[in-house]
């Protein structure tokens, strides 16, 4: 049991990263998808552009998943050594960054995406502006992701 605690912590960490960031994307993409379907019911020829705008808040979930995956291949589940308790807690700490960063930025980016969809529906020329504006939010998810990532890949070397 004792040597299991580290790995259990790591698994919790993987779940935190994947699920919390996923929640952000789920809400963001869900809202954006509703908005874009509203637009598509009027004009289905905008599908391509709407798809792009809808998918933009989807990356947070992906980042969370990647951190989760990297934890799993470093903690003895899919490879790597069984972590100590300290290392397990370090994994949890790392996962919090992308978990919360991804979730909250996903909410915000979803809202931005809905506005971008409304803007593109009015005039398709606004598409690239909408796209760039929506991506402005994403940098914060990316920063959280990079912090999580840098910690996760260095945890196996922590003693």
């Amino acid at each position, binding site marked *: 049991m004792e040597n299991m605690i580290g790995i259990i912590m790591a698994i919790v960490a993987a779940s935190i990263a994947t699920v919390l960031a996923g929640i952000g994307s789920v809400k963001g993409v869900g809202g954006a998808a509703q908005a874009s379907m509203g637009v598509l019911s009027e004009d289905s020829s905008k599908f391509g552009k709407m798809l*792009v705008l809808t998918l933009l808040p*989807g990356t947070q979930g992906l980042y969370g998943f990647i951190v989760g*995956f990297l934890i799993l291949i470093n903690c003895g589940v899919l490879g790597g050594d069984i972590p100590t308790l300290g290392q397990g807690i370090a994994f949890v700490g790392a996962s919090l960054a992308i978990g919360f960063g991804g979730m909250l930025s996903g909410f915000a980016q979803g809202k931005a995406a809905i506005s971008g969809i409304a803007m593109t529906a009015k005039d398709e020329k606004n598409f*690239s502006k909408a796209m*760039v504006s929506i991506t402005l939010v*994403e940098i914060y998810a990316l920063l959280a*992701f*990079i912090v999580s990532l840098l910690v996760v890949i260095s945890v196996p070397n922590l003693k």
Partner: protein
Amino acid sequence: MKSVRIIALKKDRKRLLEHLQDSALVQVKKGKQVSEGFQRIDKSPQIKQFERNAEITEQALNILKKLSPEKKGLLASFKGRKEIDPDEIGRIAAESAKILGVCQKIITLEKQRADYAAEQIRIRTSLAQLEPWKKLDIPLNTKDTPTTAVLIGTLPKAYDDITLSEALATECPDLVFEFEILHTSATMTCVVLFAPKKQRELAEKSLRTLGFSQPINPTSRTPQVKSKRLQDKSDDLRRKDEEAEQEIIRLTEYREKICNTQDYFELRIEKYKVISELDQTGHVFVLNGYVPEEDCAKLQAVCEKAATCVVEFEDADEDAPIKLKNNRFAEPAQSIVTMYSTPSHADIDPTPVLAFFFYFFFGMMFSDAGYGLLMIIVTTILLKVFKPDKAMRNNLRLFRNCGIFTVFWGLVFGSIFGDAPAMFYKMFTGNEITMKELLPWPILDTQKDALMIMILSIALGLVHILVGMGCKFYVCMKQKEYAKAFFDTGFWMLLLCGFAVLAAGMAAGQIVIYIGAGISIAAAVGLILTQGRGKKGIFGKLIGGVASLYDITSYISDLLSYSRLLALGLTTGVMAQVFNMLSTLFGTSIPGIIFMIVIFVAGHLITIGLNALGSYVHTMRLQYVEMFSKFYEGGGKPFEPFSVKSKSFKTKGSNDD
């Protein structure tokens, strides 16, 4: 861009304009004041007429599309317009009246079908009204006989024989009656009531208190016969409707001709609009326009071949439109620039710079040799097989060029469909191997060397930003605003370089740190001394100078933004790795191999879809937000030549392609 004035004889007007339209070399100046001694000819009635005709063809095409949709392949949208000989347009013009007739016929037929459909609804309503009277074997409007009153109608309640006679008896005990209930439902009872003729009023009165009402539009035939007739009429209409539909579908063979004719009408509209802009006298007309500098000679040749004319060129004014001209490498990225904004006269064309960094960063984010190779192969095939039009061709070339850099970065990061080679090696031999060991060249592992790649990303970002600022420097120098060039841009560039040297010094050694610090401090002092130069008083100048150093935060956030190069590159790699891992789950048995192929293909398709989108969006953002903000103004007008703006054909040798 040059201004051009073409003066020609009026008798050559048609021929000359046709040639100009075909060649698509010149943009006609619009909304220009008419010169003295000239007049304009108002062609708006003709334009209206052609617009109406174009509208008719559009309607006809929509009807055809609804009734017999064109069978298009999945990849048909890549296909370019058909190329036709310029003389073909004459033939299309000659046929246009006939084709317009066909269009009108289609519209008339469709209108008839709408009428039939409305009539069908009316019949259906009548039939539904007759339905409860089916059992009645006398006409609904049967009159009284000499001795007996006949009352046919409905009561708004459910009755059966007993309850109805009870109700009538209570209402009027004196009434003698006989009745037959034909239909009962919860809200309605259809009834025929017979009473002695002299009691008719009494019967009517008592029935009225029960809520009796006579049927609407009674007929002189029995309900059976009537509904049979309606049914026949309905069948007849259905047949006619089918005939009309068949007729329209038969006319589908004209679809291509209708498309061509529509284009022809659009072409005429465009031409008449130009004629409305011409300065004319009794015998001569003058066309004012813009022509790209490199096309001047070509334009002169076209004009002189077509008509007796004088062509004069002069330098263009401020309002002149902008035509981007780039080499094969950079041209595909023009659409990325124009999506943001067409450059103004004050700008330099940012396309070459943008093109390189766009491909480069896209490659770094997508970073997989396998995917890059797929991109190159698919786009090349599409380009060769479908010969797409200019816009689509440029998009495909854009992705092909991105693909080349994707292969490059894939090889640097050691990623070929993720870690597929290592995975298969392990699957079939059972020996663990990493991509690093497998590939003969040194690679940067996105997972193990993440920190290294992050530094690389930010360093590349610094280069990108410095190039952007260099463009600003160049633009300022060109406009002779030396203070702006050296103080506002030069010092910042120097400061950023100083920081870069400083950072490099941390690895290289003490002496480099001193050099870096020296450059930084010199640049910072320069900024403090110069940035407040617009302010009044020595204090104002000093405070303005110091405050400007605060801008360093925006540069730092710009630089950090490039860490997305690492993040997205890693995302691609890891997703691919995940699917590779899933695909090898069931080992090397036959079902395992089948499972592997399915998961491998589907998984990598998902990875490509998601990550290509991400890479495209994020590299675009890096160009627009991080680099363009350093120097690019935009706001110019794009060059839109007088041309054949056709949807379905293009003329051979025309310039618009």
